[in-house]
């Protein structure tokens, strides 16, 4: 009988433990830290210290980007800007973004394989909208290195992640800047 009295407490502890686990799993930040910003008549909901924002309209996805020297600019937590990148406001820019795919809440690029040529990728940066158009989509062997053809005098964006179909491949999506608003 005595042992039966302990059952509800154990169940409550179990539930609490599960909630903690789910919170860790989701890694969600509190909503009170969000604000709105208007860039070229587009209202963007973002964290207060927004550095840049990746918008993929086709996937209805927006991802905050952090400065290359920001500790949050790491692939385990966010979409990351690779150090070789030149930001969109620089001449002949080359913005290379990498993010996880696979399982988990940080698998931000899980669906970018659904993007096709001519789809748009938008970067909000320094009060401008940089609109890119996808020109190439390819996979190469996953070796820790991707090969990029730098387009002359062009402003490029690269999205890369693991292939969701073949874990030995790396997906590389190339886009060219078409418009700046």
């Amino acid at each position: 009988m005595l042992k039966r009295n302990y059952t509800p407490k154990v169940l409550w502890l179990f539930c609490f433990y599960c909630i903690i686990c789910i919170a860790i799993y989701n890694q969600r930040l509190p909503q009170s830290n969000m604000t709105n910003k208007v860039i070229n008549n587009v209202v963007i909901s973002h964290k207060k210290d927004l550095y840049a924002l990746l918008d993929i309209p086709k996937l209805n996805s927006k991802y905050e980007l952090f400065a290359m020297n920001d500790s949050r600019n790491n692939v385990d937590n966010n979409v990351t800007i690779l150090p070789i990148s030149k930001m969109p406001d620089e001449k002949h820019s080359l913005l290379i973004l990498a993010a996880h795919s696979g399982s988990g809440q940080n698998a931000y690029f899980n669906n970018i394989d659904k993007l096709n040529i001519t789809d748009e990728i938008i970067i909000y940066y320094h009060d401008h909208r940089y609109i890119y158009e996808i020109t190439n989509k390819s996979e190469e062997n996953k070796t820790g290195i991707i090969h990029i053809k730098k387009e002359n005098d062009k402003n490029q964006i690269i999205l890369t992640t693991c292939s969701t179909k073949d874990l030995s491949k790396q997906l590389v999506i190339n886009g060219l800047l078409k418009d700046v608003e």
Partner: protein
Amino acid sequence: MKKITLFITIILSIFLLGNNLVHAEGFYEGEYINNIWMVRKNSKRLIYQTARFLKRSSDNQFAYCVEPFTIINAQQGYTEIDPNTISPNTWERVSLLAYYGYGYGNHTDPKWYPITQIMIWKAIDPSSDFYFTDSLNGNRINIFQAEMAEIESLIQRYYTQPSFANQEFTMVKGHNKTIIDNNQVLTNYRLTNPSPYVNIHNNSIEIIANDLIETNLEFIKEENNYSIPPILYYHASSQNLMTAGKINPINTNIKIKVIETKLEVNKLDKDTNQAISQGQAHLEGSIFGIYDMNDQKIDQVIIDEKMQATFNNLDFGKYYLKEEKAGIGYLLDETIYPFEITEDNTAIHLDVTNEVIKRKIEIYKKYGNPHDKNMLPEANIQFAIYDINGELVTTIITDENGYASITLPYGKYKVKQINTTEGYQKVDDFEIDITEEDIEPLTYNLDNLEIEVPNTYSNQQTIFYGNYLIPCITGILYVKKKLYT
């Protein structure tokens, strides 16, 4: 028989000549002209008189004495004779004096009669003295000098021809020419054969050169105060007389020659010196303005597909040609091309050049990790360059520095990488559009970058199950077992 034939011939001759020349006429001394006295004087005789008209009996036409020292003592029996009894020059002179003297224009005052008479006497007998006096046999006076000068002026004007008389004028077809008579006597002339292409306006002629012709324009001056020529009357026993009459017309002419002129412009490419356009540029379509030396635009010519332009029948003169619009893909030629069209230089050939718009293309081909400061140059990489029609223009190959260059004329081109280093992709085909001249080359940095990427595979779900859920379930099962056993 011979004598009879000769007699008949003489009689017939006299009869025929008589019909032509012998025309008996009578004259009489008419009214006096008051207050004008004249003197005729030579070494033998002195005749003084009050000025008085001589008139022909048949029609009262005034007449002049042409034998100053012969007395008129017959009223009848005058016959017309050929004026060749007087030297031609003298007869022409006295005819003109009689024409422009009394009765001409406003010379209606009777004073003009003795003035004319005195001038005729002086012409007939220059060695004698003829003058006016202040009374009958009075003192010599120099009067009527202005009137005499006026008559002389009229005679001089009679002889004066237009300043362009007997000249030849060459005209260009389609143009008008105005010729001005600097002697200002053209108003007295008319064209013998009127033409719609020749108009006389006061002292100038306007000629319209519509057709290629070579013609003489004849002008004539006729005086119409009298309908018949002056007549010389002879009398064997009385002074000879003359009447004023129509004077000989004056003819003059000019020669008109209408020709064609031609300006031919040949367009050449400045680099090749050939009439062939480079690349996708077009020498044709270039527009040139034709300007006179006052910078007034006369017309324009457009270069055709044969790289030529022709302008016909530009009038004589100095001009210059200036390009106003270059053909597509060519730089405007700022050169001034002067030329002159003359009678001796009616066909002008001008070679004009245009420099094609061109630009140097430079390709730097590299590969490797951009973190390494020395990316490797990609040598021996061949690029094919195609024109807008897909025709191969040329190929270029990178050197040991991964560098290749070429200068291309105006146009759109597609560049295709032909080969690549093993393990690297070729660059996508790219287009080159050369529309503007620039000394700065178009540089293409074609880099094959090797970029290190982090591991982008996420297995957080597995971690979740492994690290949290499985231990949790295991724990629950353990606690349950402990509590219920």
